[in-house]
């Protein structure tokens, strides 16, 4: 088991290195190959009406005159060893892991990422709880009452949930529930859970539901299909024949077996949550990682893009690792000996 985990961690690190090289290449190497000069890079980070002298100074400051490999090495060194940053008025030390300073607003990237992860995690965990509970429960009920009105209605709503984009459901629900009826918080509302848990939950309710709706649909359909299959198995008939309570048959024997694919999908989904967070956070003006990455990409803020990409990759890798380990818990057949 330990060897397995070590092997996976090494694999994960290699994966992160590759992701960092590819991202760096896309933003720093590809434009150069296409003929962009260091000044062309730097011109994005100066004010309007900047003279060529200003642009050159900024290119120098951001290190664009160095070969790309040197720039990458500097980036990597910053992550491992930390780096020094000249504020003009003095030199500041940026301790490891230092993802550098934003080209746009001169803020260190790593603390911003950590700060923003609180929002994204709040959003993600709340939504995940909702979509797991809602999706799995709906799926189970639909499977048990196959063909009923409930089944048809639930699957219809599920289809809508998968099909409607977040910026649509988000805007509509904000319009109706926040601005029309005043039941939920307006866009941009945020308070940390440690300060006021109730307000935190109230503020995030609409974003949670919006994001969960998208995922819950998939889970409902997946659970329904899984349950239909398992409930037809011989061992379920055996369990019933033994005189077990129906609830026990469904939960312990049926759902447990149907859960394996759900866990797989959940791991991937949770890792990829940033994708959903991008849309949800943008729609609801929440300052989380999703919005951070959108802003970074729009502004060509390369250190911020690198930081958020690596963090997202790390998230996916870790989520997958956890899922693999969880398999052993859920499904004894894959337990490592």
């Amino acid at each position: 088991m330990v060897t397995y985990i070590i092997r996976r961690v090494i694999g994960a690190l290699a994966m992160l290195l590759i992701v960092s090289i590819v991202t760096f290449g896309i933003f720093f190497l590809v434009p150069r190959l296409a003929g962009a000069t260091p000044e062309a890079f730097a011109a994005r980070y100066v004010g309007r009406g900047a003279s060529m002298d200003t642009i050159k100074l900024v290119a120098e400051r951001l290190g664009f005159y160095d070969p790309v490999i040197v720039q990458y090495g500097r980036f990597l060194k910053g992550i491992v060893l930390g780096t020094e940053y000249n504020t003009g008025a003095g030199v500041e030390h940026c301790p490891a892991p230092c993802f550098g300073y934003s080209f746009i607003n001169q803020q260190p990237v790593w603390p911003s990422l950590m700060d923003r992860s609180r929002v994204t995690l709040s959003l993600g965990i709340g939504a995940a709880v909702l979509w797991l509970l809602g999706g799995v429960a709906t799926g189970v009920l639909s499977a048990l009452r196959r063909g009923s009105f409930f089944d048809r209605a639930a699957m219809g709503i599920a289809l809508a949930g998968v099909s409607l984009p977040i910026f649509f459901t988000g805007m509509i629900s904000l319009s109706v529930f926040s601005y029309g009826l005043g039941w939920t918080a307006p866009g941009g509302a945020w308070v940390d859970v440690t300060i006021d848990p109730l307000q935190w939950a109230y503020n995030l309710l609409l974003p949670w539901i919006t994001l969960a709706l998208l995922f819950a649909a998939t889970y409902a359909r997946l659970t329904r299909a899984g349950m239909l299959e398992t409930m037809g198995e011989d061992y379920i008939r055996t369990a019933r024949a033994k005189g077990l309570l129906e609830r026990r048959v469904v939960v312990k024997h049926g759902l447990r077996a149907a859960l394996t694919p759900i866990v797989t999908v959940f791991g991937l989904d949770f890792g990829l949550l940033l994708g959903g967070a991008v849309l949800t956070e943008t729609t609801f003006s929440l300052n989380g990682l999703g919005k951070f990455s959108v802003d970074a990409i729009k502004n060509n803020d390369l250190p911020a893009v690198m930081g958020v990409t690596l963090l997202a990759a790390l998230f996916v890798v870790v989520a997958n690792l956890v899922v693999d380990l969880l398999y052993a818990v859920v499904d004894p057949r894959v337990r490592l000996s």
Partner: protein
Amino acid sequence: MRRKALTTATAGLTLAMALAACAGTPTQTPGQGQSAPASSGASGAAEVADAAVGKIYNPSDKKGGTLKMANTADWDSLDPGNTYYGYALNFARLYGRSLLMFKSAPGPDGNTLVPDLAESLGKSSDDAKTWTYKLRSGIKFEDGTPVTSKDVAYAVARQFDKEVHPNGPSYLNALLDWPKGYKGAYKSKDADISSAVETPDDSTIVFHLKEPFGLFDYIVQMPMTMPVPKDKDTGTKYQEHIISTGPYKFEKNEIGKGFTMVRNENWDPATDPNRPALPDRIEVQTGVNADDLDNRLISGDVQIAVDGLGIGNAALPKVLPDPALKARTDNPVQQRTWYTSIIPDVPPLDNVECRRAIAFAADRSSLFRAYGGETGGITASAMIPPSLAGHKEIDLYKSPDDKGDVEKAKAALAKCGQPNGFETNISYRTERTKEKAAAESLQQSLARVGIKLTLKPYPQDDYFALYAGKPSYVKENKIGLAINGWGSDYPDTYGFMQAIMDSRDIREAGNYNLSVKFPEIDKIIDQIKAEPDAAKRAELWSQIDHMVIDQAVVMPSVYGKALYMRGKGLTNVFISDSQQMYDYVGLGVQQ
């Protein structure tokens, strides 16, 4: 996207270029406040459209309350030495005091320069090369330290370093007589800068210019002259802890998310006749979704959209047909002209008659609709917009119902030796739907006289650098017509016209003007620079305007308008001509 609200200007090393203007966005994006249906409060201000244009809506001097603002993007920087967005200059006056400022007043009155940190406007030497300002006494930083002229001189010297502060205007770098090899307050710490800035005593500051410049007062009203205490300056980090001299100081500042401001107890209203400082507290959220922001303005959750760009396209169909919402809007004409350049480098447009044929044949009423109709602008016949000195309507190409004069156009074509018309291309910015509509309008109206236009859309980020602003590209690809827009940097005709009229500024790439290239005009611009009399300057600008219209190298379509919404529960709301949006210094909150 961080809105390229004000696309850009030249501002280079030359004095002339230092006075940049800016091209703007025709696709107006997100929005501005709104007000309560019937609850504008005790004063009972009536909700009428344009109630804050040229006058004050819901005037009040009651203090207190929290002003809630939101921004779709983020500041380029809150550091007064590193900021250049129009709204940032408007807003900075809440936490900083520069030598002079624009009067916080509605309409044209807001164009007046008034002393702020200084006791009076600048006193210039006879040759307009030396400018002296005396500081008011009793002004303090938020920590209680008195402000001296040395703090202003330091602010000017620190912003010189464009490696550390690349966003701010470079006017002072270009205008002042800095010592050779000077690199700014950080790198040339002990340099003697008395050739550029002198502080003979704690209340006097003297600027020495390289060459005469009569409009220096307009430069020192910008935030670069807001004092910065040397021992508190942390370079790029200063934006996080700005030491206020204005009525508000930062309570909490989270760059990229927002900030809150509270009253600065060390701001003494007795030293400041310009700021009513009505709210007790100001909350600003940044990076707010544009469509959501418009909704929040309507619902009252936010009172002002800081970016000052007007209501977004998504909200327009909701606001305009609804009389209650429309009544909360203000639709002022801006110092901005949307026009088409007719480029003489591309034959047969080297012949003035062929250019005039275009000006005659264009259907101006259709162009008016293309730019958004009533709320998008008003039909223009001159380049200088109505609120700037020297504006005169120039009716050289008048036609019945503004639909274009086909007969006169054909006659001009005959004179040009192209009686059956000709073919050329027209460029516009792909992302801008209004510019596309304008190009299509011209395509249709010019086809009536046999002039065939091919549409050439280009991405806006590279429009000037690689395409319509690059002479070699324009010639090779026969771009005869280019859709353009231009807005003034500050409310003086020089700030509007110089950058798009002076042919000496035309470079290899990145030009905002390629079509106006007349040595006579360059000479008049030099004359204007040396002319102390404002009325004469205005007259000379009118002459230039008339020449470029007569020569048909530019064809104005509309003077731009923006549609703003008044915030719910706001008092003292007005649009000043200098800010061209709601004046943030005047705003108050209903009690």
